């Protein structure tokens, strides 16, 4: 074990940690105005805190009408995907110190989905695309009495795409999706991939046909925005490429 003396975290916590940061937030409330506006909020915050902590400071101490979704606050529930300094991220997984607090931090809703209020968007089209790819295990024949066997290698084959938390950071970072909301988008393809490459599943062909559609995988222009945006580190573009390859070779 490393010597348990003062470590990095503790050494930094000795001095007063607070700095002043400006949050520049995109506000929209159709009950008030049909136009969206930028609003600046200067706040005192420890740079080791999260962008979500900053939004809470605003909501709890300055303006209770600021509206955003959040729940777990540590990157597993997928509620708080937003555009922070022009990039899709989870507010609860982005520390202030990592995004240059010297300049105003811009926070706006993810793109390509209708904004309903402030940072809240209509997630329904996103979930509809997900539901359309048959995101569930399909098997034939009689159920075994015990578990289906699966080798560790076969389990590993689709591990990456099981990590998806349906936050929409990938889909709403995709230029194709911005231009045409009919495109299934990366998240739906990731969730199709999760089953296509699961050795227990028997509906891979059907899912491939769904994604062979004009709004399917062929729309992907491999810009890698989705891979950059994924807060779970899923290699999204690679997964899409694997689905394309499976469509050509019909091997998966």
């Amino acid at each position, binding site marked *: 074990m490393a010597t348990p003396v003062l470590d990095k*975290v503790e050494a930094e916590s000795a001095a007063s940690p607070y700095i002043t940061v400006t949050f520049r937030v995109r506000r929209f409330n159709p*009950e008030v105005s049909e136009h969206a506006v930028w609003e600046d909020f200067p706040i005192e915050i420890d740079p080791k805190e999260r962008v979500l902590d900053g939004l809470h400071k605003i909501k709890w101490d300055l303006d*209770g009408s600021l509206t955003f979704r959040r729940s*777990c606050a*540590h990157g597993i529930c997928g509620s708080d995907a937003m555009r922070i300094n022009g990039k899709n991220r989870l507010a609860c997984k982005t520390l202030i110190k990592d995004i240059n607090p010297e300049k105003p931090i811009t926070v706006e809703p993810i793109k390509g989905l209708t904004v309903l209020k402030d940072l809240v968007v209509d997630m329904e089209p996103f979930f509809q695309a997900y539901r359309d790819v048959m995101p569930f295990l399909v098997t034939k024949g009689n159920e075994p009495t015990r578990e289906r*066997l699966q080798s*560790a290698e076969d389990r590993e084959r689709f591990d990456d795409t099981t990590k998806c*938390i349906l936050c929409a950071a990938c889909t709403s970072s995709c230029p194709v999706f911005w231009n045409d909301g009919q495109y299934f988008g990366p998240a739906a393809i990731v969730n199709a991939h999760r089953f296509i490459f699961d050795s227990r599943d028997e509906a891979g062909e059907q899912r491939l046909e769904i994604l062979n559609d004009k709004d399917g995988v062929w729309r992907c222009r491999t810009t890698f925005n989705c891979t950059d945006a994924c807060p779970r580190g899923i290699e999204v573009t690679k997964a899409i490429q694997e689905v394309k390859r499976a469509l050509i070779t019909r091997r998966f």
Partner: protein
Amino acid sequence: MKIHKYDTVIVGAGGAGMRAAIEATKRSRTAVLTKLYPTRSHTGAAQGGMAAALANVEEDNWEWHTFDTVKGGDYLVDQDAAEILAKEAIDAVLDLEKMGLPFNRTPNGTIDQRRFGGHSRNHGEAPVRRSCYAADRTGHMILQTLYQNCVKEGVEFFNEFYVLDQLITEVDGVKKSAGVVAYELATGEIHVFQAKSVIYASGGTGKFFKVTSNAHTLTGDGQAACYRRGLPLEDMEFFQFHPTGIWRMGILLTEGARGEGGILRNKDGERFMEKYAPVMKDLASRDVVSRSIYTEIREGRGCGPEGDHVYLDLTHLPPEQLDAKLPDITEFARTYLGIEPYTDPIPIQPTAHYAMGGIPTNVEGEVLLDNTTVVPGLYAAGEVACVSVHGANRLGTNSLLDINVFGKRSGIAAAEYAAKADYVDLPEDPASLVQEQVERLRNSTGNERVAEIRRELQETMDANVMVFRTEQTIKTAVEKIGELRARYKNVSIQDKGRRFNTDLLEAVELGNLLDLAEVMAVSALARKESRGGHYREDYPNRDDVNFMRHTMAYRELGDDGTETIRLDYKPVVQTRYQPMERKY
């Protein structure tokens, strides 16, 4: 106001709610009302695994699992319920596998299992591999798998609908569930759902603590809705403090880290759990480990300049093992602390984690009106409920199990009840309580702020009713909560709109937290003994003569409108196991 009619209404779309929904939808016309999108629930935060005596990697059986559950709960567990939990665990895991859950696998392709706190072979001989897992994201996989199967079954969801009231109608002298009242976040509209059966699966109440592993949204809404309508809450003084939360933040680091060989160390680098639990060491039950950590801290062996935490040391484990078995928690350490777990120990402290108590139910999930009578048509499952399979302290991996076993049971029972029952008439003006509550908050001009009252509540709870409690500290908390409840009457909100008014709902949630915090503190004050998660320094021993019984707390409303809490007690169901001194 809109009125809807369903056979079965389920409140909450976490693990228990969706497991229930899969069963109920097959058997009855079912609606799931959830304040979050289904995959946002905190089931997804559970990491380490789900216990079941599959015996895939070593000898094991459900009787050993039952014993561990009863002992882990410090004998306050209802043993008939624990036996059901342990027996049905095996099918619960196999059901999930068949639904598609990607468990980690053994070399021969079966579900892999690992060690977890308090789970032992042959009644405490040595740790046993009982936890079925998917890396350190088992809860995430359960949540995703259940949602996938809800999509497959065509479950009908009402997303971002907040249930704020439980409707009860008396028919021929019998109190029956008539439905629920919900607030739609998007529009501010109020909806009445008339239903033959209602299942609460709305989760825990951890947000009344400051350092907690719980989500912001865990505000005890289901417990509060039932309690306000005169239904009891059971064993609310028992709250679990998980030993390994990230220092100051409370984010959960799974017990699976110790199951994989992680060690707790104090500032001298000493493996201190050897002193407190010679056999199970770092894998003793959570209440024992949390108290040991605070004992080290209090006796001056805590780490850091303020000596206020200890270390979780994973540095002796091979990086490949951390990557394969604990990828998420090692990433949390990197993201939130800037620490590399391959080479540096992680600063941790106990974090408020899980409510053992809740809405009392029998083993079919039926909600109790008192010690013996059920409320026809009303069910509860998961953390919101108290069956009681967790007693005074829940074992790790038994909550993912609980939501699956009792989620399924309540889903079947509620739908079968709905198939033979008639609708109960709604009370006159069914939405009045919610309408009045919402309008009062929207129009209030008081000078108290939600965030400030919540902050003070969380601080007093952390300071006074956490791991160590005394009559003095609990009384301080009761007094403070009383003051905060009075101030809450003057709370006002800034957002007066109807569209996505989360300002309003945070105020509603705070009201729930205040009610439940008071129940917890009052129940804790009366329990003059130490048992499981409830540790009284002024009564450090378990007292089976006076307190081998469940607490039942009722809200009493006086003629002048004053609220008081009446405590009653319910016997513990004991079958196979006589209480013994608990050693690990």
